[in-house]
């Protein structure tokens, strides 16, 4: 028995129309069907947070969603973050500068989680950052430098918003 469905998903701005097995998770769809391996798969049961992507702007664990459920949705993965000339996103640059990663396995999920979090809460305090990070497991850093990177990124993004809008958003 193979239950298949043709879905149409927009990933990082590109539309993909593909026939898939309905039991395929969104994480496996991204990695195996459209070869975007930036989304990492750790535990595959919703504990580690490594596979976090944005679906219609919301951070979700892509191992806990079926690809067929993303039919018609806009998916954003870590590959979308770098701009032209491979220039890092301010959030990525903050992780680089603060040594917010060691092996980097958990980093894509953390970046995607923070991308949504910092949109809702551009000026978080440390407690709020730690709460936001509670859904991601990192076995290298002890989190200190991830927290520092997140706070630094928040400040950089606020400055960016200030520059483009001509004012600093609270």
């Amino acid at each position, binding site marked *: 028995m193979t239950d298949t469905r043709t879905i149409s998903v927009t990933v990082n701005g590109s539309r993909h129309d593909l026939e898939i097995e309905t039991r395929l998770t969104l994480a496996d769809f991204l990695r195996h069907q459209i070869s975007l391996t930036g989304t990492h798969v750790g535990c595959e049961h919703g504990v580690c947070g490594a596979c976090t992507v944005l679906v219609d702007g919301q951070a979700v664990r892509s191992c*806990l969603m079926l690809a067929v459920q993303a039919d018609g949705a806009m998916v954003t993965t870590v590959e979308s973050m770098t701009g032209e000339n491979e220039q890092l996103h301010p959030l990525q640059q903050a992780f680089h500068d603060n040594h917010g990663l060691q092996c980097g396995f958990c980093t894509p999920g953390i970046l995607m989680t923070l991308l949504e979090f910092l949109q809702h809460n551009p000026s978080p305090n440390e407690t709020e950052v*730690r709460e936001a990070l509670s859904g991601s497991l990192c076995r290298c850093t002890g989190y200190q430098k991830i927290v520092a990177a997140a706070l630094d990124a928040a400040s950089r993004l606020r400055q960016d918003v200030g520059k483009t809008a001509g004012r600093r958003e609270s």
Partner: protein
Amino acid sequence: MKPPPFHYHDPRCLDDALGLLAEKENAKLLAGGQSLMPMLNMRFVFPDDVIDLNRIPELTSIGEDEGLVRIGAMTRQCALERSEVIRDHCPIIIEALRYVGHIQTRNRGTIGGSLCHLDPSAELPTVAQGLDATIHIQSKRGARTLAMEDFPAFYMTPAIEPDEIVTAVEFAPWPKDHGFAFVEFARRLGDFAIVGVAVLLVVSADGSISRASITLGGVGQAPIRCTAAEEIVTGSNDSDAAMREAAETCRKIDAMDDLHVSGVYRQKLAVALTLRALRKAYDRAIGESVA
């Protein structure tokens, strides 16, 4: 591929979902997927059919009507967190949601899914029990309601038939000036609670408690309403002593042993956390700021 093979259905209206559920022998309903998907990925469940409720708009709503707050079963936890209706009428739900998983799981997880999964340590069933929620249930055979008190049949099993779907949850809000608190202890934020406590209080002008609701999660196989403790705090002239005496009754509750902690430890936690929650709720009711 992690999940076992199944036939996937994504009905666009409740009636179609009810029809499918009535017709399929071994079907599972997929709500937010934050419990069913891990169970599929680990192959703990082998449904022949998965009926996805995520494309049924009529199950997603938060409304207030004739003094009752009604939440569609497929309303996501993140929508509840941001809802003004919930903030105004049932703020304890928002306080409890902070402990429900993480941002990424609350973005998908639903109130109906949480209630039906009925994990003993889950926050939403505990709060629903404390608020005396009414569960709305439908099948092809008709609609019925069930008091939250009667909703758990046994461990992680709601008292609904295989062809029935929980469609909504209804709460009667407490008076505007009520005090509330949801307090829990877990090893890490977002982990399954070892013990959680939901407390609602109404405090009279003379400082005595006129109405109380105290519910423990994580202690028994389903949320436990502590009626004996509620009776002790209600009407007492010395509220502080009564709260201490009420919390102490939790030491006698038959608490679960599991691989994490012993039943005795759960009883001790239940005493400490109940007192903490009672004091926090009391302070809120009399207008003191709480941490």
